[in-house]
């Protein structure tokens, strides 16, 4: 059996047509369009019959209320066929009134509808629009190598398309426009990343995952940048506690804050780079190996534990994967997935005891549960817990 690499398949769903129309309706409502339409129809339904009453005795063009309505429609819409027209003085006065009002009304309504549609496009271009996606990936913050980051995201996550990504940053229109030209369909929300309203526009509550990178816009110190990252994560977690959140920090001291803010995964990017430099300076020769391990094309990866191996010793899984897929199991990552969901499940399981002392121990264990806990090279007898992923090194390209 081929083990399937664990993939965070982000499949964004565009909003239903119903949702789109409701939004447009709300925008038109804000522009008073429904009220103007109401006035239009009132004039149409009142003007027509009145014209019929005024004209019917002297003008044989108006044989019924229907003729009056037809005339008022033709007049108000400024079509003006001229197939029926008033000939009495009161009739002509009424016609003059309807004509003048009709020009204004129709012009205003069509103008406003057009403006709403144009404005929406313009706002989306400038990142002032609102995302309408669900199940998408939100990338908060801006980095100099944003292009490579987006490219990497698309490459690493099969099924993810530019339409499924929404960027949230303050880098400005031109820089984002460049990205959007390279990746058509890429979503973009402009605004301060610590502002909950901005995050709401990116619909983090409907997102599948949120990635918060160490923002490089503005001249900020590492501490300031990290503090803002923590604030952003706190906002994301309060808006969307169920969404998987990962964040990049520069300074290790802020990693703890992120854990408190219930960030699911924290990346210490600067520390990784430093460790690599230190290792290289000591001439360990590790750099190419680390590069190989981190490359998306094979190397270090996680695979889901196949059904039936949960609860079994790790050694059994290791020899199974070695035999079937030619990969080397070097350990486990425990408590993977959305942290809150795992903790809730653990809390339910903890209650299944009659012994109060045991219950307290269980509850303490739930509180001490560490998300994404790495267990490197455990003994073969180590039992595989639920919610664990096997960490494997892919098959080597060079054959013996």
């Amino acid at each position: 059996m081929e083990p399937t690499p664990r993939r965070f398949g982000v499949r964004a769903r565009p909003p239903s047509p119903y949702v789109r129309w409701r939004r447009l309706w709300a925008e038109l409502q804000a522009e008073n369009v429904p009220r103007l339409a109401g006035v239009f129809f009132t004039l149409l339904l009142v003007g027509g019959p009145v014209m019929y009453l005024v004209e019917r005795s002297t003008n044989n063009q108006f044989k019924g209320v229907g003729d009056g309505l037809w005339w008022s429609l033709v007049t108000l819409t400024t079509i003006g066929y001229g197939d029926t027209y008033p000939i009495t003085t009161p009739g002509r006065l009424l016609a003059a009134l309807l004509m003048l009002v009709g020009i204004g009304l129709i012009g205003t309504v069509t103008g406003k509808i057009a403006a709403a549609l144009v404005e929406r496009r313009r706002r989306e271009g400038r990142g002032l629009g609102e995302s309408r996606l669900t199940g998408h990936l939100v990338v908060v913050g801006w980095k100099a190598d944003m292009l490579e980051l987006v490219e990497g995201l698309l490459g690493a996550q099969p099924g993810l398309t530019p339409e499924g990504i929404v960027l949230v940053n303050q880098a400005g229109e031109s820089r984002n426009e460049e990205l959007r030209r390279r990746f058509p369909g890429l979503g973009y929300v402009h605004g301060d990343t610590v502002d909950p309203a901005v995050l709401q526009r990116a619909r983090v509550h409907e997102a599948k995952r949120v990635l918060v990178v160490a923002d490089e816009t503005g001249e900020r110190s590492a501490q300031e940048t990290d503090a803002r990252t923590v604030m952003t994560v706190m906002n994301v977690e309060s808006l969307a506690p169920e969404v998987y959140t990962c964040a990049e920090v520069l300074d290790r001291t802020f990693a703890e804050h992120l854990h408190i803010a219930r960030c699911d995964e924290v990346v210490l990017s600067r520390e990784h780079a430093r460790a690599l430099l230190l290792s290289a300076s000591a001439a360990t020769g590790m750099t190419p190996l680390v590069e190989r391990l981190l490359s998306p094309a094979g190397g270090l990866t996680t695979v889901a534990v196949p059904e039936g191996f949960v609860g079994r010793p790790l050694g059994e899984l290791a020899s199974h994967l070695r035999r079937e897929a030619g990969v080397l199991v070097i350990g486990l990552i425990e408590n993977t997935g959305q942290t809150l969901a795992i903790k809730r499940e653990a809390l339910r399981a903890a209650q299944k005891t009659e012994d109060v002392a045991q219950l307290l121990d269980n509850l303490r264990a739930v509180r001490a549960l560490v998300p994404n806990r790495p267990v490197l090279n455990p003994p073969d007898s180590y039992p595989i817990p639920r919610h664990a992923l096997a960490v494997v090194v892919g098959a080597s390209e060079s054959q013996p």
Partner: protein
Amino acid sequence: MSAVERRAALLACPFFEGIAAEALDHLAGACTLRTALAGDTLIREGEEGDSLFVIVEGRVRTEKRTPSGDLWTVRFHEKGGVFGELSLLDRVIRSATIVAEADCTFLVIDRERFQAFGDRHPAAGLAVTRRLAERLASRLRKANEEAVTLFAALVHEVERRL
């Protein structure tokens, strides 16, 4: 089921260990026989009950619900096991659900019959009541210990957050 078989069934119970065979004879006479099919529910958590069950044949499962609403199996009782004993002393709300795991035969005695048995055979009644009292005392001790444990945990929890 003959009187001899009934007495043998009670004698085989660890619960009645040390009680004179004669007293168990009288108790066995006061019991009624009850059978259940695998999957039958004998006692329901939260309902009122007044009967003690002795498993003569078969096996039952004790189930409880967590405050979160999950059902879990607490333990199993085999042949010779006794459950529901506290209901002989007082009206009780059953603390767990008992489900037959296999086809079962029980000796069952309810509170009314138990009291009548005690009135008729005071010596035998006293012996069994003592055994119930021991069971009750040990439960009470455990409950007290748990209260202390909870108390300490609660204080510790508040202390942590001071």
